[in-house]
Each structure stands twice: as C-alpha cells, then as structure tokens.
C-alpha cells in the first residue's frame, strides 16, 4: 500500500468520522415519542373506531388517530412535550387527559369510556325528539304572511290619517266637490291597503293546539271593531258623498259616516299599539322561580304551555316536573 492510497483511506475515514459525529447529535435532537393504548367501555369491551386526538400544548398542533378492532391506537413521531388528549366515540362521553411525552419513549394511555346519557334516559322518545319539516314549513309560511300583514298594516296608517284629516274639509256646508273627491280617493286607497293587509292575517296558516294568549288577544279583539268599521265607513261615505253632490244635506244613516270613521281609525291605531307594547312574563313564572329558591311549596297550577309540553314528553314528565313542582 503506497502513501497516496493511505492518504485516501485516511480522508475517507475522516469524512465518515466527521459525518457520524455530526449526524448523531442531530438525530438525538429530533427523537420523537409514541403515544399508544387501548380504549374500552366500562365493561372492558374494546371500542373500535374511537377518535384519539392529541394537541401539543405549545404549538397547538393536533394529530388524530382511530382505534382498531381491538380498541388499540398508536400515534408515533410526536415531538416530546406536554399534550392534551381527547378521546371520543359515538354514544360515549368524551374523556380528556394530559400527558407528558419524553423523547424516544412510548407512553401508554388506556382509558375506559362511560356510555353517554341519551334523551331516552330522560324518558324522551326518538319520536318526540323528531323534527317535523311540514310543521316547520307551515310556521315559515305563517311568519312570512304575518310579516307582510304587519308591513301593509303600518303603511295603511299614512293614508288612514290623511283620510281622517281631509274628512274635516270634506264635511260641512262649505265643501267643494274636489275636497270630497280627494277625501274619497284617500279613503279608497286606505281600504285597499287595509283589506290587503287583512288578507295576509286571515289566510296565514293556523298552528293547531295553540291558544291565543297575551297582547295578540287584544289585537284580534280590536279587529272585530275596525274590520266591520272599514266596510261600513266607505258605504256610509258613498251615501254622504252622493247626498252632498245632489245638494242635499247629509241625512239618514249616512250622517254617522264621520263617527264610524273615527271609531274605526281609533280601534285600528290601538290594534297596532297593542302589539307594539310590552306584555311581560306571567306572574306565576316569578312565583315559581322564587319557590325553587325559597324551598316552599304552593298550589300554583301548571301553565297551559307547561301542560302542553308535559303531554308531549309523556306522563312520566308530569310526575317529575309537574305534580312535584313547588
């Protein structure tokens, strides 16, 4: 072996030694950890397809894995550090835990999951919890129609007020045909808007099993005044218009056109106010809340809404939340 060959061999050895000495610390720095374990239910049976998520406490990086048929999981190549582990499976309560993974170590984390409480456990059947798309569609249509009713009803206020005001100039001895025609035109516009608004309220779908309660009761009652009034007022107005146009004095029932119009407009204004004012919670609610915290019992009856909800939830519900309620 000549000197040149020896120099080559020496260089190769140097290179190998250099790389070995530099690479080794690097691989030591990136040594990772593994988290593994087995997930079971409380009876010890393996839970397959359970999701195991680990979140690095520093970086926030989340890595997930699923358990196999034997309930086992393994998450490799995790940087050492603190982790939040979350284990979740359908029908089971989610469990969370914290682990600290050491470099190069395999940490075992096995857990048992308790079955989650279900609505059936509360006595609520799946049929009771089931939605009804048809009923929702009725509710949607009802709300849509009542929104139009509300908007048209508000718009009606402007021509109604104008009709009442022009009525002052349309009546009496010194009125012109123009005044009366203008008043009649405004009245016609009011009636048109009013009956359009009424249409949307009358033909909005009814929701079965609902009892009218609260300010809406007054709103509906007032419609019994302004509804007929809105029919009668233009009829009487037409009669009065005709009599005045012939140069006659307004007589007979036409004489009541003004009074009927005032009552109608007043009832209409009140109807709008009735749904704009607050209707507070029923006294029994405050009473009930006080009773819970005061610990005393009263003979307070259930509300209609309560009874309806109880009926929906079944008889057992009434035992738990109805009869024994303070």
């Amino acid at each position, binding site marked *: 072996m000549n000197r040149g060959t020896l120099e080559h061999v020496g260089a190769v050895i140097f290179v190998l030694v250099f790389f070995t000495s530099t690479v080794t610390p690097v691989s030591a720095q990136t040594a990772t950890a593994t988290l593994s374990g087995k997930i079971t239910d409380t009876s010890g049976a393996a839970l397959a397809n359970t999701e195991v998520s680990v979140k690095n406490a520093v970086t926030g990086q989340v890595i997930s894995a699923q358990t196999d048929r034997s309930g086992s999981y393994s998450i490799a190549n995790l940087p050492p550090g603190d982790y939040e582990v979350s284990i979740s499976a359908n029908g089971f309560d989610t469990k969370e835990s914290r682990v600290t993974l050491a470099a190069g170590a395999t940490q075992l984390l096995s857990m048992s999951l308790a079955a989650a409480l279900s609505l059936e456990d509360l006595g609520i059947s799946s049929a009771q919890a089931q939605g009804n798309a048809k009923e*929702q569609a009725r509710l949607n249509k009802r709300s849509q129609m009542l929104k139009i009713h509300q908007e048209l009803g508000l718009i009606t206020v402007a021509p109604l007020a104008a009709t009442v005001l022009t009525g002052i100039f349309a009546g009496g001895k010194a009125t012109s045909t123009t005044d009366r025609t203008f008043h009649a035109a405004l009245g016609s516009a009011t009636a048109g808007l009013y009956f359009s608004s009424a249409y949307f309220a009358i033909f909005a779908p009814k929701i079965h099993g609902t009892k009218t309660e609260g300010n809406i009761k007054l709103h509906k009652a007032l419609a019994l005044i302004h509804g007929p009034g809105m029919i009668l007022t233009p009829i009487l107005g037409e009669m009065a218009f005709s009599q005045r146009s012939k140069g006659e004095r307004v007589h007979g029932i036409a004489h009541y056109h003004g009074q009927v119009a005032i009552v109608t407009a007043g009832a209409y204004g009140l109807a709008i106010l009735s*749904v704009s004012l607050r209707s507070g919670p029923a006294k029994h*609610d405050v009473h009930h809340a006080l009773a819970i*915290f005061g*610990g005393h019992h009263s003979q307070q009856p*259930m509300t209609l*809404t*309560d009874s309806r909800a109880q009926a929906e939830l079944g008889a057992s519900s009434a035992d738990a*939340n109805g009869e024994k309620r303070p």
Partner: protein
Amino acid sequence: MKHRKATFRNLGLALVVLALPQLVHADTDWVLESSTLSYHVSHPLHQVDGVSHAAKGKGVCQNGQCNFLIAAPVKSFDSGDSNRDLHMLQVTRGAEFPMIVVRTQFAESEIASGTVHADLQVEFAGQTAQYKQIAFQLVTQGSAIKLSGTIPATLTDFKIPAPSLLAMAIKNDIPVRVEMSWTRSQPK
C-alpha cells in the same frame, strides 16, 4: 378474649380500607326535580322573557367526573304572548328541531365548593354551540341542590336571524337564566 377483640378491630380496619376507594369513587346519579329556564330578548320597544318549566335532566358522576344531560322542548317556552312564541318557534326552527339539549361535564369535587365551572354543549335550532367554564352557583338544601347561573347565548351562536318588530331588530344577546333543583338518586 383480648385476641378476639384485636381480630375484630383488624377486620373492621380492613373493611374500612377496602371500602374507602368505593366511597371516594362512588357513582352518584342526579335527577332534575324542577327547573326554570328563561331567555331574555331585548328590543328597543320590548324586554321579553320566555320561561319554561318543562326541562328534564339526569346526571351521572363516575370516578370524580360528572356528566349531565338536560333537555327542554322549544315550544315549552312561554313569553306571555302566543303570537310571539309561535314566531320564536319559527325563527329557531323549533318544529324541525323540537328539543334544546344541553350536555355538560365538570369535576365532581366542584359540587362541594359551591360553584361549578361547566363546559356546556348546547344543541338548539339545528346547531351546536360550546360554552366554556360557565359558572353556576350551588346551594344545598337537604337532599337537593339548587343550581343557578346564566348561559351567555347569542343568536349568532345558533345562526338564528334576528327577528324584527316595526323594522327594528332584537339584540344579538339572548342570555338564558338557569334555575334548577337536583336531587340524588340511587345508581342503577
């Protein structure tokens, strides 16, 4: 005689030691006896409270961890106005999703502290919202525990479009006040 006494004492001690873990980790079931849930809605012209007493609930505490489930029908909330309640039912898609379901977890040790900080998962209007560390006050009255607190719910949490009256929308915040009475029951 002396020997016999010592044997009994040792036996008693052994029983206590054996029973201790069972006492510490004893499973406890809880049943909701009565409740008042009320949501609050703010409108420039109205302050509305819708109240329900129809919630049903159950809780299980195992190995120091408590899991509770509470459910109430959406249509059981009464605001004192049937028209408004029907409108609430419509905007919250109450016919499609008739139940409000709340699941919660907290450490059993918190029950004794007088305040629990619960993580809530609320299913409502076809959406699920999470509320972290909501504080509820607890007052023990005999065998019952009275719980009270407020869930800081908002319309956007459940993607509910804000209803309006006279062209004015309600506020996004709809805090839900919770007042409940729970009693312990024997685990199955």
